[in-house]
Structure formats: structure tokens, C-alpha cells
């Protein structure tokens, strides 16, 4: 029995996996027919019972989110899919949409039916044109097949689905910023309350779900709650996509029940690249505090990662070996957060501006040990003080790297600069490795 359990990726090796024919060859859209025979509340109850939690990072139970939508309020409801996948290291939704867009569309139809939405949106990051093509084509084909539009499968349920391209803004992955962006504004987060379930898109009750979360819905409807619950751990049910990248022999996607460990995945992937050893890694993207080799056996589920001091996040396992300068890595991440800060609130906007300058000095060996204290104090003044979680993500790599690699920061100072050879970290360098 393999540790892996491909569901969403089960047929990605078929050349036409992204087509409606390819999808239907493997029972595609059968879950939809099943769901439409149940009442919307029954669908919500099933998803709630399954224990499916958000796969976009926060891990909020999907069924609960759906159940917050007020019913019988005579208002338009919206389901908005967050396909803005931009968290550094995160690369699961794009291959999923490239190879299997219909799983998302089927999930959207079922989810929309459950929350009584008649118009839904996919907010796809704009920097992936071919993914856009695939999703748009899948939507068009779903319309042609009668899965979208009026009176879907004779159920009386109508649904319009609109694909919307973002245009390069990490913050739009934050659900309220996404909604503002979709409404045609600058993608800056909104005040909460009101929460999207009460006043979301166009101030109407709205559910915002991650691609993978929604794409998982048809499998639950089709195979049953028990099938899903049988996978994963006590509070982290089901399967999910783990994305392994970086200094490994074989990077790639691994679909497995929640709770697998990095050690297990690395074994399957042929380990850290030959001749090297694991130095640090992220469990769920750059916003999740980094881990080291000491954390190889942490169960990669919501609770396991959290109790080890980080977050499961997007399950983006970025692996860095001993050739990598952690100060350089962190600097680059902080530069990312500075670039992507929306500008709305002071600590994030000004704080990331300042952090980058300090990190640059530290990388160049110009800092002092007092600067490390100042750095940590600034992180303390940023984390939990900003409008949304972006700035919390910005300080996570700093705080966690200082926790595990403080000596390396100091080494930059005593060395008068970075002691690492960047060439050694590259994939195409052989001599220096």
C-alpha cells in the first residue's frame, strides 16, 4: 500500500485529462448529478461531516463556511474560487487546473447549488495564460454539456460561471482583497466584520474557497463521507496535494492523506539532491515559519505542523540544502512581501520597507548583533499589528530563521559578508556543489 493516494491527480497522466471527455471517462460530473438529487442543505451537511478543511492555507472547515450563508434572505449569493495561487513555494492549484479543470468546475456547481448561488466566479492569477485557456475552455465545454447555465441537468438550478484574471498582486489571495479586486477596486483587504458570508461580493453573502478545496468536493459526494474520513488524521481528514520543490532529487506533486511526513515524501522523491543535506524547509509556503531537519517527522496535517510551531499553509514544501544562505533566502522573501504589501496599513507598508534595508545590511555583513535585537523588536511591532496577515507572513521567515540560524546571521558580520557561494546552490552548477 502506497503512502500516496492520488484522487485529483489520478488521471493527470492521460493526455486528454483536461478535457470534458477525459474527465467524464472517469465518472466526471456524476457527483453533480448525485448532489442535485439531494437538497442543498444535505450537500452542506455532507461536506461538513466529511471534515474537509480549506486547502488554501487557513484550514477553515469548508462545510461550516457554506453553512454561514444566510438562507431565504432573497439576496444573490456568490461562490468565489480563490485561484490566485501566489504564496512563494505554492504550486498545486496551477497544475491541477492545467490537467484537471473540470474537477473544480464540478465542485463549483455543487458548492453553488449548496449555498444557493446562481453566479460564481473563479479569480485566477493573471500570470498563467495557459491555465486561463484551459479553465475557460473547460467552462465553455461545461456550458455546452448542460452542466452550467439554465436548469442544470433538469434540476431547475441555474448557474453562471465567470473566469476572471487577476493582474499580479499577491494580496488578492486574501479573500476580502480578492473580493475588492473582483469588484474592480484596488485589491486591498476589507474591514471585517462584516464577513464575506454576510456581505461579500457586491455586499451579498459570499463564500470564498480555494481551488483545491472546491475540487475535492465532487470526490466526497461521489465516494461518500466515510471514504473521505477514512483518510488523514483525527482533525485533518482526507487527502491533499503536497508540492515538493527545491534541492531535492525529484521535485513534484504528491497527493496523499493528510499527516504524511516530509521524511516519507522525501524518501519517495529520492531525497535531498545527491551529495547534500537538508538545511531548512517551509511546510506551507514562505509565510509559514521555517523548519529544519529536526522536523522531518512532523505530521503534515493542520495540528501537527501547528504544534511544531508553524502552519500547514498550502503544503508547499520548499527544500533548501546546506549550500543555501538562509539570510539571503529570508532577504529575498522579505523583499517579496515588501513588493506585495498592498500599502494600506502602516506596519506592513513601512515595516517591510525597513526590514528589507536591515536584511540587506545583514546579508552584506554590515549589521551588528544589536541589529538582530532591533530586527526582532520590529517584527514584534509588525506581527499582529497590521490590517491583514500578509505582514505576519513577512516576519515569519525572519523570526524562524533567527530561531534556528542565529549563528549564521552573526557569521555574516564576523565574515564581513555572506560566506556562501550562490553558485553552489544552483541546479546547473556541478563544480562547486
Amino acid at each position, binding site marked *: 500500500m502506497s503512502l500516496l493516494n492520488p484522487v485529483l491527480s489520478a488521471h493527470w497522466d492521460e493526455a486528454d485529462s483536461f478535457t470534458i471527455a477525459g474527465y467524464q471517462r472517469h465518472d466526471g460530473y456524476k457527483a453533480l448529478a448525485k448532489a442535485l438529487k439531494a437538497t442543498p442543505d444535505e450537500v452542506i451537511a455532507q461536506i461538513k461531516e466529511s471534515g474537509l478543511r480549506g486547502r488554501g492555507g487557513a484550514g477553515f472547515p469548508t462545510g461550516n463556511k457554506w453553512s454561514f450563508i444566510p438562507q431565504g434572505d432573497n439576496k444573490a449569493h456568490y461562490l468565489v474560487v480563490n485561484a490566485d495561487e501566489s504564496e512563494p513555494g505554492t504550486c498545486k492549484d496551477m497544475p491541477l487546473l492545467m490537467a484537471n479543470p473540470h474537477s473544480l468546475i464540478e465542485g463549483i456547481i455543487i458548492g453553488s447549488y449548496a449555498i444557493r448561488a446562481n453566479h460564481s466566479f473563479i479569480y485566477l492569477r493573471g500570470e498563467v495564460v495557459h491555465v486561463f485557456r484551459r479553465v475557460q475552455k473547460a467552462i465553455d465545454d461545461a456550458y455546452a454539456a448542460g452542466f452550467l447555465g439554465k436548469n442544470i441537468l433538469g434540476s431547475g438550478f441555474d448557474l453562471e460561471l465567470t473566469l476572471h484574471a487577476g493582474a499580479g*498582486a499577491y494580496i488578492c489571495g486574501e479573500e476580502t482583497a480578492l473580493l475588492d479586486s473582483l469588484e474592480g477596486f*484596488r485589491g486591498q483587504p476589507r*474591514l471585517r466584520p462584516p464577513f464575506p458570508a454576510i456581505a461579500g461580493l457586491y455586499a451579498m453573502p459570499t463564500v470564498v474557497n480555494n481551488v483545491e478545496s472546491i475540487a475535492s468536493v465532487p470526490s466526497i459526494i461521489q465516494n461518500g463521507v466515510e471514504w473521505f474520513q477514512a483518510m488523514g488524521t483525527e482533525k485533518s481528514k482526507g487527502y491533499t496535494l503536497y508540492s515538493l520543490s527545491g534541492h531535492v532529487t525529484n521535485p513534484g506533486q504528491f497527493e496523499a492523506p493528510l499527516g504524511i511526513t516530509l521524511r516519507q515524501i522525501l524518501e519517495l522523491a529520492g531525497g535531498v539532491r545527491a551529495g547534500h543535506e537538508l538545511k531548512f524547509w517551509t511546510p506551507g509556503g514562505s509565510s509559514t515559519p521555517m523548519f529544519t531537519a529536526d522536523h522531518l517527522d512532523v505530521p503534515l496535517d493542520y495540528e501537527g505542523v501547528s504544534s511544531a510551531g508553524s502552519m500547514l499553509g498550502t503544503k508547499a514544501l520548499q527544500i533548501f540544502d546546506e549550500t543555501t544562505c538562509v539570510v539571503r533566502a529570508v532577504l529575498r522573501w522579505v523583499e517579496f512581501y*515588501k*513588493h*506585495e*504589501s*498592498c*500599502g*494600506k*496599513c*502602516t*506596519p506592513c*507598508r*513601512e*515595516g*517591510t*520597507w*525597513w526590514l528589507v*534595508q*536591515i536584511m540587506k545590511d545583514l546579508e552584506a555583513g554590515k549589521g551588528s548583533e544589536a541589529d538582530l535585537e*532591533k530586527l526582532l523588536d*520590529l517584527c*514584534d*511591532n*509588525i506581527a*499582529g*499589528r*497590521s*490590517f491583514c496577515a500578509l505582514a505576519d507572513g513577512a516576519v515569519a521567515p525572519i523570526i524562524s530563521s533567527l530561531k534556528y540560524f542565529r549563528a549564521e546571521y552573526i557569521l555574516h558580520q564576523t565574515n564581513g559578508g555572506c560566506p556562501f557561494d550562490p553558485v553552489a546552490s544552483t541546479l546547473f552548477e556541478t563544480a562547486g556543489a
Partner: protein
Amino acid sequence: MTPEQAVAAVDTVSAIIDGVEVTVPKGTLIIRAAEQLGIAIPRFCDHPLLAPAGACRQCLVDVEINGRAFPKPQASCTMPVENGMIVKTQLTSPVAAKAQEGIMEFLLINHPLDCPVCDKGGECPLQNQAMSAGRSESRFEGEKRTYEKPINISSQVLLDRERCVLCARCTRFSEEIAGDPFITLNERGALQQVGIYENKPFESYYSGNTVQICPVGALTGASYRFRSRPFDLVSINSACEHCASGCDLRTDMRRDKTLRRLGGDDSAVNQEWNCDKGRWAFKYITSRERVKSPMVRGADGELHEASWPEAIAAAAAGLKGKRVGVLAGGRLTHEDAYGYSKFARVALGTNDIDFRSRPHSDEERDFLAAVVGDLTTTYADIDKADQVVLLSFEPEEESPIVFLRIYRQVRKRAMPVVSDAPIASRGSHKLNAKLVASAAQATGLTAQSVILVGERAAEVEGALSAALELAKSSGAKLAWIPRRAGERGALAAGALGNLLPGNRPVVDSAARVDLQSAWGVPSLPTTPGRSTSEILTALSDGSLDAVLVGGVDPMDISAQALEQLLNTFVVSLEISHSSITAIADVVLPVAAVVEKSGSYLDWRGTARRFDKGVEDADLRSDVRILSILADELGAPINLPTVSATAREIESLGAWDGARASFTKREAKAAKSDEFTLVSWRFLLDLGSLQQGEANLAGTAKQARAHISAAAAAKLGVSEEDHLIISSERGSIELPVSIREIADDLIWVPRNSPGSQVIPSLGFTSGAVKVAKR
């Protein structure tokens, strides 16, 4: 929460802030509740009249509810007080204090240390709060963000981006309050900055408010920039002389000179806002065109400076025993207007007085005398109106604070607005106004509706009758909103041919007797007086011998008005040299606003008093000069000072007897000419009180002739072309603007550069010929 909301709220909640219990209306934000306890939580983005933003994060406090503490400090400007809440501000929570100190440090890292040359220095919320809530020394050793400085975002407003703390008060004001989102936050992250679209300056009538609410020196007004330090200024409460909205103003003076004006705080009227005209149009006070000394026309036909006794004597000699008309003008204070009114009746023995120096009608005169004095509509009625009907009234152009009130309700609850304007102005667009052909087509009015009639209703026969009819049949609240600040006061003062002070009808003998006894005079003239146009006609045909003129621009009345004054004895009370002083026989200089005290009655009929700002002003208020002149004429009016006048007005009170009568007029049939000209004035135009302020004038709307697409096709013109609009008197030439308007109408601004309708065409509305240039 605004005070009105606070009054409306019935439910209260209680919480403990820094150990002290406070009970506030439900929905009150923590930051406001703390204010009630005298606890000032530092803030930048927070503004009580703007929607909460939570952007600057300066107001972080520790909060727990029913024993459950929030894991991190919360923005007190976005969180409403709840029962069982315990709030610890910087005063009692080290976490909150450190959080605030941290935010302040972040705000300062990119802020320039240019306080010594910054206009805001000395009155700067950032400076002040950095002292109270900041660190004594910065730990920032890096590079500050710099920008090219400053940039003109309009001819009047400058932006120093590196000073900006990105609180978004200015952009939120422009969008939420003014409906003019011409400045926005652009770019992202640390490069986020306030800006305009490159081809569209920040030309909002309300742009000055952004300068006022900017918590740093990022936005400055060109006319005040580098002029003064706040601690050198003396602030006086004043009233705005520009329109009938009734704004509370703060005037800041240094050595008797007005340096700037700011919106004052009156929640019942302008809240904290004002318009750019009210803020910036005050250079006329210090203009070189001011008349400084009395002048008398000599035997040589020229005006010569004269002493006050000489000038008073010359005026008295010219008026004594003559048939005199009085043109009071619409810019007078209530007290000055009262002076003219009493002077006409007591010193000149006539009812030939009219304050209307603009197109007017007998229908209007009767409406004013019979109806307006008793109207009680207020801003609060607009706040709760189920719909607002605008008749011959463009609030954004003609009473901009009334506009803000209406807009607020349109934005807040999509309050319906109906307008009888022939073309949708930008203001109408913002109000989402439904355009109707006439008052009769406004439907669904209730007692909760508000009808606002402008002074231009006088230009359409039957319009005021229809407005009154609509109000009566629906029970809706009615208000008459003139453009000028002095008209409602002049009406109350009886500066009208058929009306004596306090709503006393001229034809009512009991009212006259009442006034005679109050004034201690044996009799008052009994015949209703002439209107402005009748006075002018009488002057030109010799039925009248002389005229006393207040602040009047004859071109506001008619093209002929000045000519009609040429062969008569003219006494002019004026602040500046004008076309009237040029032909006057005696010119008596009078004080402008800051040089005198007084009050204006706004459109509601409510007085706003103001004090003199210039202590040793040489010039006196009109009423005082009129009182001296009356003495010289041997018919004293006993109004030696403004305060004495105010006391007399007060003790005289309003007439409790019958009102003047009003006879309904029928609307005239529409004309069938090729084109009919329609017009109104832009707020910012060639008005004489805006003179000398080029920065403000630079933000005025450009004059264009608006015609329909069909008319444009017929004329063979596009928006690249110019039109010649002509009447028998003359013509104007304007670029074309194609808009939604009836095919037989052409709209132009009434008194803008290139489009002075009365002098050029001889009327404000009527048949014109239109051709491509």
C-alpha cells in the same frame, strides 16, 4: 458616529475603558467612547465624518470581551463598544503603548524632518502625537523614501508625497463626502501614493477640505503655502459671505490680514466642511481695488477723494427731497439690510427698495413676501427626506453645502432626487437625479419629502406657483434657496417693495402701525414699492430722481441696468471699485466681512453671527453709514452700530398677523424658436468676490456650450468645434459639448470666462441663434 446618529440611537452599551465605566449609544466606536472619558487615543486615518478605515493602525488598544481577550491589539477606530468589554489604552496597557509606539516609529521612518518649513508645523497631528506617543529617538538608519516635491494636483492644491502618511482621509473625503474621486491612492505597498489621473486635476469644489483634514503637511493650499506659522495666527469665528448654505467658518488672521479660512464645526449645517469658494475666495478683501476713502464727483465730472463729512453732505444733498430708489443687493448682512430697509422707509419715505440684483419677477416678490419667511425646512429634513425635489436649483453650483447633505443621503441610502433641470449637470449625475420637465411631473411626494427651490425659479413664469402647489398638495417641506448669502436676511429685513421687516406686509395697515410705533415715526409709505427692474426703468424715464446702491453688479440684473443709471444721482456704498462706483456721484466705502460684525441668515432663515477680526478697521458697516446719512437728511434711523441694529431687529420681532398675499401664476407656453438658451452660474466663475484668487480660478469649470447629439448633427459640429450663440444684443463663442439635452435647448454657464450671458446676449434665458464658427 456623528452626533445625529448618537441622538437617533436608543440602545446603549457599557464598557470599561482604562478602569472607567462608560455608557454610549450602541455602535459607538471605542475611540469615540474613550474621547467621552477624555482619553485621547492617537489616530491618523480616523475621522468622525468618514467611514472607518483601520488603515494607519495608530489607535491600537487591548480589548477583552466577557473575559476573553483578543490575542492582539485591536484598532479602536473600527471596533464598536460592546457590553462587557474591557478596553485598555496606551494609558493602562504596556502592550497597547508599545504597539502605538511601534506604529509611530514606522510612520516616521519615511517622514521628512522638514517641520521647520512645513505649513503644518505647529498644528500637526503627526508632530503632536509623535511627541505624545512616539519614541524620543528613531532607530531608523536607512534610506528614506523621496519624491519629487511638491506636485500640483490642481492649481490650488499641492501634494508633498514624502510627507504623506497614507491615511487616505483625503481620498475617502473626495469619494465619500464630495463624490469627486479625482484623487486616489495609486501604486502599491511602500510606493503607494496619493495622485490624480495625469490628464485630470483635482478640480473638486470641495478640494480644500482635504487640505484641512490632512493630518500632516502633505496637502497644502497654494494660497497659504509658506505664508504663516499657525502660532502667529489669530482665529476668529466667522460666517461665510459667499452663499446661503450658512457655513460656520474659522478665519485665521495675522496683523489684521486674513491668511486662510477653514470650515468651522457646525453639525447642523456644514459639519466640518466648506467649499473652495468659501475657503479661498477672500482676496477681494485685501484687493487694491478696495475703495478706501469716500469720493464725490466734482464739477469736472471726475470722482475725488473727500472727507466723510463732505461725502455725507454731498449724498444728503443729492437725495434730500428727491424721489429715490434703493437697490440693496444680495450680499448684505441681516443688520446692513435692515439699515437699507429702514433708511428707505424712514429717511427716504419710500417702499422703492429691492435686494434682488438678478433676474426677478413679481411672482417671486409675492412668493418671497407671502411664503418664504415662514418656511422652516432645515438640513435635518434633508437627512430624513424620502425624496428631494430640486426646482430651478443646482445645489452643487448654487449652494454647495446643501449639495453635500443631499449627496450624503443619496450615497447612504439611495435617497431619490428629482430635478427640473433641462440638462444633467455633474451634480445631478452624482445625485443620480431623475430629470423631469417641471414640478408637476414630480410624483410620490409625501410629508417626508423636501422641495428645494432656487432663485432661478423667478425666471420661469409660474414656476414658484407650481412649487408652492406641489408642496401644498403633498405636504412636503419647502425651502427657497437663493444663491447669495444676504438675500434671506434682506428678505427678513424687508428690503423688498411689498414687505417691511419681520414679514410685515406693506399693505397691512396694522403691520405698518406696529412698525411705526416701534420705530417712533409718525407714518410709513403705504404704496408697495417698485421692484429692481421697475426702479431702473423709473430712473431712466425720470419717474425717480436718485438711487442708493448697495453691493450690486448691474450686469447681474440686466444688460441695460448700468445705462439706466447713467443720468441719475447715484450714491454707492461699496467695498471695491466697480462699474457702479465708476458712474456714482458719491461713493461711500464700507467694511467687508472681517472688518465688521454682523450676521447672515442662511436659506433656513437661521442667523450666523460673526465678529470683527480687524480691530482698528477704518471702514464701517453699511448700516452705520446709512444711520449717519439719515441724520444728515434730518430723518434719523438710529442705528449707530451693528449691535444696536441687531438688538432692534430682535426686539421688533416677527409679525404675527396675516402674511402678504400670493396669487398663483400660470406657466407660459413653451417657445418654438430654433434654440432656447438656458443657463446657470458655476460656483467658481467671474463673481466679484472671487477676484484676485487665480489659484482658485484655475480650478473652475471651463465654459462650453452644451447641445444634444441631434442638434450637433444638424449644426454639423463635433466637440472639436466652436459655436457662435447670438441674440440681437451680441454673441458668445464657446466650444461644443455634446450632452443629453432637448434638441432645441442650448446650455451655457452664465458668468464664466467667455460666457457672460447677460452682457453679451442681454438675457439669461431666451431665444438665440446658434451656428458653427
